[in-house]
């Protein structure tokens, strides 16, 4: 996603790392120097100060969601904002803990803190994926695009079908089934686990076979993953003539290529899904955090 020499962590010579470190050091020094006259808590002047800083930071960090979508802006690059978002978001953990003076309880205030930590730690996962997966994705695609791979799969399907038809009706049947079984993409879980959907298709087929067995009494051959290949090799060993053997070999090559493409597409979908899935936690939790923050601030002054 971003070139190695200028990642979100090293943007502008890690400018925001230093800013965040400075902010953290200042906070720690103030916390140590400050005598709250009791136990440290959010109600001292330092508590209010750190709380205000933390609340403003949270609001500003959430503005990143808006900044990300506005393409015509003069307020710095998205990469710069992201770098600041990550570093200042990390510093927020410390500032919020110092704000509360490490006091926790079963209340709205600690809920706010927990939500904030959940948002930040889900963000850490996001940083990890942003640093790791773009490279993996590029390597997996082998400089093709997903659409190109899908188009190739579709072409192979057409060719394989006509080739299989020239061999034998059984072969045509298995190829047809193989096409039917190739499912790229799927539900959230399927995408994340890099399944090409054949498992789902196979289990459906199995269920259907069991159903049919009980109805007809005739047991069809057992279905297993990769069975397309075995079926063809069986055929090759048994009753094929030379011409058929030749065509079958070609067909097997073709289907191997397809299999390879399909698993790469599935992986591509997986990488993309992993890079996106954390946002489905990060974003809703941060909006929930905003509500908790509003509740926290208002309730504190409601019963001052």
């Amino acid at each position: 996603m971003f070139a190695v020499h200028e990642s979100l962590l090293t943007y502008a010579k890690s400018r925001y790392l230093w800013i965040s470190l400075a902010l953290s050091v200042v906070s720690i020094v103030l916390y140590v120097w400050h005598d709250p006259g009791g136990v440290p808590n959010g109600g001292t002047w330092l508590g209010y100060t750190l709380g205000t800083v933390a609340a403003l930071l949270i609001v500003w960090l959430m503005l990143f969601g808006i900044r990300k979508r506005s393409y015509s802006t003069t307020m710095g690059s998205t990469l710069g904002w992201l770098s600041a978002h990550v570093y200042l978001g990390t510093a927020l953990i410390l500032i919020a803990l110092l704000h509360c003076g490490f006091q926790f309880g079963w209340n709205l205030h600690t809920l706010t803190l927990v939500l904030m930590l959940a948002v930040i730690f889900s963000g850490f996962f996001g940083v990890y994926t942003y640093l790791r997966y773009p490279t993996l994705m590029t390597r997996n695609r082998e400089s093709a695009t997903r659409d190109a791979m899908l188009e190739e799969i579709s072409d192979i399907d057409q060719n394989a079908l006509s080739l299989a038809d020239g061999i034998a009706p059984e072969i045509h049947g298995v190829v047809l089934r193989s096409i039917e079984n190739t499912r790229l993409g799927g539900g959230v879980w399927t995408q994340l686990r890099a399944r090409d959907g054949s498992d789902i298709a196979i289990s459906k087929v199995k269920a259907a076979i069991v159903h049919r067995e009980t109805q007809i009494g005739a047991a069809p051959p057992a279905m297993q993953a990769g069975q397309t290949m075995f079926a063809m090799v069986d055929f090759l060993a048994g009753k094929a003539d030379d011409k058929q053997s030749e065509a079958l070999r070609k067909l097997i090559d073709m289907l191997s290529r397809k299999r390879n493409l399909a698993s790469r597409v599935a992986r591509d979908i997986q990488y993309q899904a992993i890079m996106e899935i954390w946002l489905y936690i990060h974003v809703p939790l941060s909006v929930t955090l905003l509500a908790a923050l509003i509740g926290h601030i208002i309730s504190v002054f409601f019963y001052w």
Partner: protein
Amino acid sequence: MRWLIRRVLKKSASSLSYEDDIHFGEVLTIGRAADQAIFLPDLRAALNHASITAVGKNKYKVESLIVAGIRVNGEITYSITVGHGAVVELGSTRLTLVDLQGDFDAAVEVSTIDKSEQAAIVSKRKKPTSLSQTWISKRWPSWLGFFLVLGFGLLVPAATHIVPGLNKILRYSPLPSTTFWNPGEIDSAHRFFANDCTRCHKNAFLMVRDNACTSCHTSTKAHADPVKFNIPALGDARCGSCHQDHNGDRGMISKDQRLCADCHADLKTRTKGASVVADVSDFGSSHPQFHVNLPGWSADNTFTPKSMLWSSALKENSGLKFNHLKHLDPKGLNTPDGRKNLECSNCHQPDAGGSAMKPIAFETMCHECHKLGFDTLAPDREVPHADVAAVSYTLNEFYANRGLEGGYADARAPTVVQERRRPGSPPLSREERVEALAWARDRSEQAAKTVFTGKACVTCHSVNAPSAANNVWQIAPVRVSGIWYSKAKFNHAKHQTSTCLDCHGGAPKSEASNDLLIPGIENCRECHAGAHAKDKVASTCIACHGYHTSPLVTLDKKTRKSP
């Protein structure tokens, strides 16, 4: 059995025509082979791909004959029983099982799916390839989370402040009430109403008012009179400035010395000279020398202790004569029970609270050695202690009795007094009684003089002879201060790790009772220093001082009746 096979032919975009065909037999075969009832010249169909069997009126069984299965009503299946209206799709052909018309046993409509429709179907059947195409969403969980937390975290608890009784309902429900806002455990003394926030937080968005505290804590003394000391700021000081709840077992009493030092560091300036209290900000580094309460008496002999700045040269006047050195002689003292070494604790015993010392009591502490006898012929008889009048009449009664009874073996006494009365002796004559009582009066006066000035009273007390006006011996009043530091609390019980001499080191060498044996600030500072002490006991103001000490003003703003 007769099947109606109706082929739908599309002539143009808007017009269709039908071509009916009849098929005989139970089963309608579908495939790419030439012998199929419905022949499909399409590579996506197998030679014998599927069959449809009419199993009843408007009831069909669709079966796939190959492993690839067949799509019925959009789902790949191997065998399914359907009614009319079911759609079977195979490649570019769509078979619709139609409602029976005429005298056919079964009917199917065969139509072609055109290219654009095929493409639409394919894209519709495509599985999602990115998360944004799946059911998960960022938007609705965001709204859900936002409104759940805002509603149950803020709005519902806030509503309890407005709707009476709601808080009680919420407390017995799983829904959060205002206790969900509670930032920390309530102090143990307040815990019995901890669920009712409004007991203290009467007004929303206003800090807890003092009247919330004084509604229970009535008559709590104020610190000082804001009017007298020209410090309106004292009136602004809230109870909550020092007493913050929600600190659980840490309690509500703030020990922060800044709470005092904020004003007391320059109190004279603040009060525009109305206060005479010296400036103080830290016990270790900025605290004046102590003032001690020295015993004193006003003209009418009422005890009025005087507060004096401590100094090593200060003398006290308790009215008592006492020599510590003599009593604490390491060689011991002669007592009726033999030699005895006295210790501090023989005379100085803590009171029941352990804080101060009991007053010295003659009867239990001195009397063992200092007998108040007055007559060697009656060594067991003593005059009472402390009651001057009783001393005189005790002596008068004693000697009158001895004189009249006779048998008093003193050669200086008249015969009538010395004579022992025998049983059957005649009663004393009037002259004899007068003589005996005259002797008794003289003897009693003599004994009183000896007791007061010779050996008993004068040992410890200042004694003045009776004046001409009244015939009563004068004993100077005796009293130790009792409370030496009137503005501070000192507790002996808390200092049991120290010995007496650690603080009262001068005692064993003191020969005069007016030596002040109460230590000054330097003695305390050997162990104690201010809040930031590193190598001493960190002691803030309230370790020794109280805040609610105004003699006249209470926090509920009523002037107290008597100081």
